[in-house]
């Protein structure tokens, strides 16, 4: 139940690696946060794990299986790897219920229905509006919908790209608390990219700081939070207290 990235190199155009031999591990049930300045390759890392980018070197392994031979669309089904991209992560013209169904295509119809009802219960805000168009939701609700949809097939690994982007401080706290609850309830491991370092580290077990496609620092959430150079350079921690 471990998700690991070994010495991966990847990029968008030939001969220009964005990830320069990067290794990251997420143990079962862990919440791991990826921090780093803009353009350091955080989103690229997630895209490489889900398969939108093919590693040029190195391996991505989930539960002992090398993902290289698994078609991108089979990764959720065969390896339990679910992904919530940062932008355009819901389908606005469809209803909330339909959005959730899109995430549960490969679940047995009966189990899918039960799972859908269960998630609508866990997310009462969505449950109340199940028949409404997804683009009528607020930013926070959209993020919840994207999360709920990712949970439809019961994944083992959850990849989240800046889930708190654009949320108010209040919503942000709620979201991070929620991510923790998901982990406790579903037993998934979470690998999330975040800009809001302090808030995300609070709910995380461990963290990595990426710079230029390399791991610059890694440690427990507490260690990273207390690391001064990290705080000043990359966490956007603001003025020194």
């Amino acid at each position, binding site marked *: 139940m471990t998700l690991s990235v070994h010495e991966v190199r990847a990029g968008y155009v030939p001969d220009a690696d964005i990830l320069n031999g990067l290794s990251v591990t997420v143990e079962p049930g862990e919440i791991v946060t990826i921090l780093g300045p803009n353009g350091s390759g955080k989103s690229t890392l997630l895209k490489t794990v*889900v*398969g*939108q980018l093919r590693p040029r070197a190195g391996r991505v392994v989930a539960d002992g299986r090398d993902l290289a031979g698994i*078609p*991108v*669309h*089979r*990764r*959720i*089904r065969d390896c339990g790897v*679910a*992904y919530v*991209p940062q932008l*355009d*992560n819901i*389908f*606005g*013209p*469809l209803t909330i219920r*339909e959005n959730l*169904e*899109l*995430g549960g*295509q*490969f679940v047995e119809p009966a189990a899918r229905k039960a799972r859908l009802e269960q998630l609508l219960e866990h997310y009462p805000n969505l449950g109340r509006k199940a028949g409404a168009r997804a*683009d009528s939701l607020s930013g926070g609700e959209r993020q919840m919908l994207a999360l709920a*949809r990712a949970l439809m*097939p019961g994944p083992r690994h959850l990849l989240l790209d800046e889930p708190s982007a654009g949320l108010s401080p209040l919503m942000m706290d709620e979201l991070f608390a929620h991510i923790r609850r998901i982990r406790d309830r579903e037993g998934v491991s979470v690998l999330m990219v975040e800009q809001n370092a302090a808030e995300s580290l609070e709910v995380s077990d461990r963290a990595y700081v990426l710079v230029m496609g390399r791991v610059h620092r890694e440690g427990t959430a507490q260690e990273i939070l207390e690391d001064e150079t990290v705080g000043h350079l990359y966490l956007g921690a603001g003025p020194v207290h």
Partner: protein
Amino acid sequence: MLEFCLHVLIMSAIFGIAAVSLNLQAGTSGLLNFGQIALFGIGAYAVAILTRAGLPWPAALLAGMAAAALGGFAIGRLGRDLAAEYWALATLAVAELVRLVALNEDWLTGGPQGIGGITGLFPGLDGPARALATLALAAALLLATALTARRLGETQFGRVLRLMRENPDLATALGHDIVACKVKVLAIGGAMAGLAGGLYTLYLAFIGPDQLLPFETFLIWTMVVLGGLGNVAGAVVGALLVTTLYAGIPFLKDIVALPSDLTGSLRVFAIGSIVLAALMLKPQGLVPERLRRLHAQRP
């Protein structure tokens, strides 16, 4: 005049089927098939060849649909890793390839002369009765096609197609095999286009390679775009509009004494003008409504 009206309506129904098919591919699924006429042509030639060989027309029509579905399947598999734009160009090339085969394989297709003398629909009837019966058949098949396309759009498969159009990466991440979806849509769209082509052959009792020119694909695209991409009823209305105009222009020469060699160019010119006018006057009408709302919500 009645005969002309019936003719226009029959042709509208036939091309309406081809337009509904293209709308399913391009409007619903975002697949820019610039070789639609090849699928139409495969159905048309299959029906011509099979009826000439003695098959009754309903069986020939079904076989034509199957052949065109296979053609769609092949186009879908073709360069399945190609980016959408390159795939679109490839479809144009495939359509030209199909036309060149029709033009050159005389033993099968009759070459430049095409295949004529086909026993058409309802040989027992004559004159207006025959036209009316043909219209009823074509209209019924158009209705069936349109309802099928509409139903399909409301199923889970249809929703996946729309997601594939808007956000293929997300569709893939959610576990949907978009190459398989693409191939499926092209096979379904192929069967529909093949039905249109087969009806065309049966109605005119003739098919020739000139019917497979790229301009014909352009005409079908015009119907779909005028009606509003992604809109089944719109595709039918667009087909009626374009067909009426296209068939009506030769009549101008009786009214304003136009040299007949001009009417061909005038047709192309008129269709082009309509597309331009529509693009300039009502650009939002040329984009599917859902796409528009989605874009409007972005910051």
